[in-house]
């Protein structure tokens, strides 16, 4: 038995392509590691900041809002974003929260950093992350977050945009969202961690200022379609029920339930990629199939999950989130097909 078990288990391995993708992912992750959620400053920067700290909070004049740069200023952005325009200045460095957009579980915040005149925010800055410290005091869930840097329209000037993607994980899936909640937000500098050839880590602090936004009311237009189709579907010959469907500017969320899904990791066995199985096809009114974007923060169908039905007290459920890399024009959507079942998004019956 020992040899058979070992032999069968050893057939589970990374393919060369998979290993290469893993290495790329690790390298990208290590090069842009999250810094600790505390101010990371060099002693010199700290001393300079301590003797000359001046803070001011006020409205700022900004160029194009950062999310408009990041997503493009199409109909989806116009329908579902909100301008914020709150700026905090510290020692001549201004961080402005320009705009926000989202749905029940994802929130995107656009920031513009403006350095003192004469400072160039070049490629190093685009590879760095602001060091965020945020909370939603009234919420009862957890968060994941990632920073992105939209393409810099002028790498020789003193301005640069950053986008903070926040994924909200409510304690009870589907029970509440982020829209309209108070958020506390502080940003402690901008930088990255470099791993040196000898393996030691070096904090590279590009800017050690602190921008304290205090408490913000985060609100944006709610364009989410929330449906409860309760339709039968079949996933790889297994019957299930499409219990909930949400289509928002950020993407499509699908919940599939059914007793036949209990312990599905066991019977789909080595193909336990259950959240990859449901086919989700979104069409616009012109009949175009909208392509999901695998590079959206949180990855291919990132934010998806399942409970596998291993807990006898919980109904088995698969939740799939599919994102598109831009804010969807909700008025242009026609239907979504889930496991071959077509669901109109603007009236009509499936």
């Amino acid at each position, binding site marked *: *038995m*020992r040899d*058979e*078990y*070992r032999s*069968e*288990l*050893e*057939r*589970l*391995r*990374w*393919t060369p*392509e*998979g*290993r290469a*993708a*893993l*290495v790329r*992912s*690790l*390298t990208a*992750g*290590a*090069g842009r*590691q999250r810094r600790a959620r505390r101010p990371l400053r060099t002693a010199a920067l700290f001393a300079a900041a301590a003797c000359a700290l001046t803070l001011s909070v006020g409205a700022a004049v900004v160029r194009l809002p950062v999310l408009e740069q990041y997503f493009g200023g199409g109909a989806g952005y116009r329908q579902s974003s909100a301008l914020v325009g709150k700026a905090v200045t510290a020692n001549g460095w201004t961080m402005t929260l320009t705009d926000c957009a989202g749905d029940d579980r994802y929130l995107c915040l656009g920031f513009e950093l403006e350095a003192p005149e004469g400072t160039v925010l070049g490629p190093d800055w685009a590879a760095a992350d602001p060091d965020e410290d945020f909370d939603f005091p009234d919420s009862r869930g957890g968060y*994941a977050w990632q920073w992105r840097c939209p393409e810099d329209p002028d790498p020789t000037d003193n301005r640069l945009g950053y986008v903070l993607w926040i994924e909200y*994980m409510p304690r009870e*899936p589907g029970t509440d969202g982020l829209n309209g909640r108070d958020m506390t937000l502080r940003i402690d500098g901008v930088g990255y961690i470099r*791993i*040196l050839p000898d*393996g*030691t*880590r070096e904090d590279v602090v590009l800017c050690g200022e602190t921008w304290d936004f205090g408490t913000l009311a985060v609100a944006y237009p709610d364009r989410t379609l929330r449906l409860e189709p309760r339709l039968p579907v079949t996933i790889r010959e297994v019957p299930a029920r499409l219990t909930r469907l949400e289509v928002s500017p950020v993407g499509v969320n699908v919940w599939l339930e059914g007793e036949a899904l209990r312990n599905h*990791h*066991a019977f789909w*066995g*080595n*193909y*336990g*990629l*259950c*959240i*990859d199985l449901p086919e989700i096809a979104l069409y616009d009114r012109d009949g175009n199939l909208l392509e999901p974007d*695998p*590079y959206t923060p*949180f*990855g*291919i*169908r*990132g*934010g*998806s*999950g*399942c*409970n596998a039905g*291993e*807990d006898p007290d*919980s109904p088995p459920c698969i*939740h799939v989130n599919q994102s598109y890399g831009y804010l969807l024009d909700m008025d242009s959507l026609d239907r979504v097909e889930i496991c071959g079942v077509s669901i109109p998004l603007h009236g009509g019956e499936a």
Partner: protein
Amino acid sequence: MDAERAEALAERYGDTLLRLGYTWFSSLADAQDVCQTVLLKLLESPRTFPDRDQERAWVLRVGINVCKNLRRSAWRRRTVALDEGLAVQAPQPEEDGILPLVQQLPLKYRRVIYLRYYEEYGVGEIARLLGISPALASTHLARARARLKQMLEGSDYERRIPE
């Protein structure tokens, strides 16, 4: 250098962590998450060890802790953007295979089976890795073997379950 270290770690421990994660979750997606999470931790916190055995034990310990943390939430999450279709070479399900049967055991049993029969650790080492008493590790191992015998009743494997 990051890429070289990442490549070396992925080469040395990628498959091991994939198998450890699979033992825990019976899911390739979760196994990949475990693998990536652990390797990223190793990249973030480089350590040196007197020998490869101690390094491997530490990697397994980190991997087990990652599995425990992931399992705390019934809703496990995906954070990896890998091309799943290309990522992993998986064994085909075999009707008479032993692996599907082991994977049907409760986690407490399949994790000791993995550490005993794949990693070839003794009861004391298994206990240390899992953070349980040696007596409990021994009990789980005995019960796991008994369950497997029951499941394999009548098959060729029945006679070959080692003590």
